[in-house]
């Protein structure tokens, strides 16, 4: 799915990355805990989160996250948006809750970047 299709599906507003909507997305990870994102999210995945502080962008940059969807209508601070622009990471915001956001994406074929946390205990 492209980020543009995801934007339509989630009735989302693009806050950063209008020029990156053709990006292809295949997997996603959802969490409000950055420690979990660091431990489990995979490169190229979409990140669904309700957290809006600048560390969300830093974490995403470190992991090569493809784009961030802020759920529950969350809007990040100007500082967070400035960092997203600096690192060229698209940020979208949707009014859907995390569960609905994940469900809508899953129904369209986006899968988790891993199924269970014991899938691969090795750091790979």
């Amino acid at each position, binding site marked *: 799915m492209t980020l543009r299709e995801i934007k339509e599906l989630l009735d989302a507003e693009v806050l950063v990355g209008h020029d990156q909507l053709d990006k292809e997305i295949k997997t996603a990870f959802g969490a409000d805990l950055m420690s979990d*994102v*660091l431990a489990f999210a995979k490169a190229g995945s979409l990140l669904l989160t309700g957290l809006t*502080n600048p560390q969300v962008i830093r974490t995403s*940059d470190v992991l090569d996250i493809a784009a961030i969807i802020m759920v529950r209508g969350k809007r990040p601070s100007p500082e967070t948006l400035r960092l997203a622009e600096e690192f060229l990471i698209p940020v979208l915001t949707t009014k859907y809750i995390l569960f609905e956001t994940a469900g809508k994406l899953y129904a369209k074929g986006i899968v988790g970047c891993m199924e269970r946390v014991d899938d691969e205990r090795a*750091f790979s």
Partner: protein
Amino acid sequence: MAVWKGLTTNVLSRETAIYENSFPVEGGTYENAGHVSSQIKALLKRMKISKEVVRRAALVTYESEINICSYARSGKILLRVTPEHVTIEAIDEGQGIVDIELAMQEGYSTATDKIREMGFGAGMGWDFVTSRIFPISFVSPRRSAKAPISRWLLVSIKILMAFSLI
């Protein structure tokens, strides 16, 4: 890729560095948390090091940096690149760890509300570093449980991690 039993600091120090630098990290604030990781990531990328090594190196640097910002008074990240390895060493000056075995357990945390607000402090960091990245060395002088936490102690946590380039 991340580790080898057998690889020691002696082996690593015999290799000739093509790049070596020390990056200071300010403790006790999140203002610049992640800044050093971004810098190191960009540097390694420019050296044309493989994407996967760059990503992993950035990840461990970030874990270490967040740790310094969260718990220490100050710290530094040392980056050393040789034709064979990228090594990252995190050294901090903070309050030390009272019970290392307990600190290594997944889920154990001494994080403050401020740290949790930022999305960290779930007690996953050390477990992640030790069980998935396998540091070459992890040194933390034991702090006496009776020592007052309110007073910063000059105790350092030092972790060395390396990535193979061949």
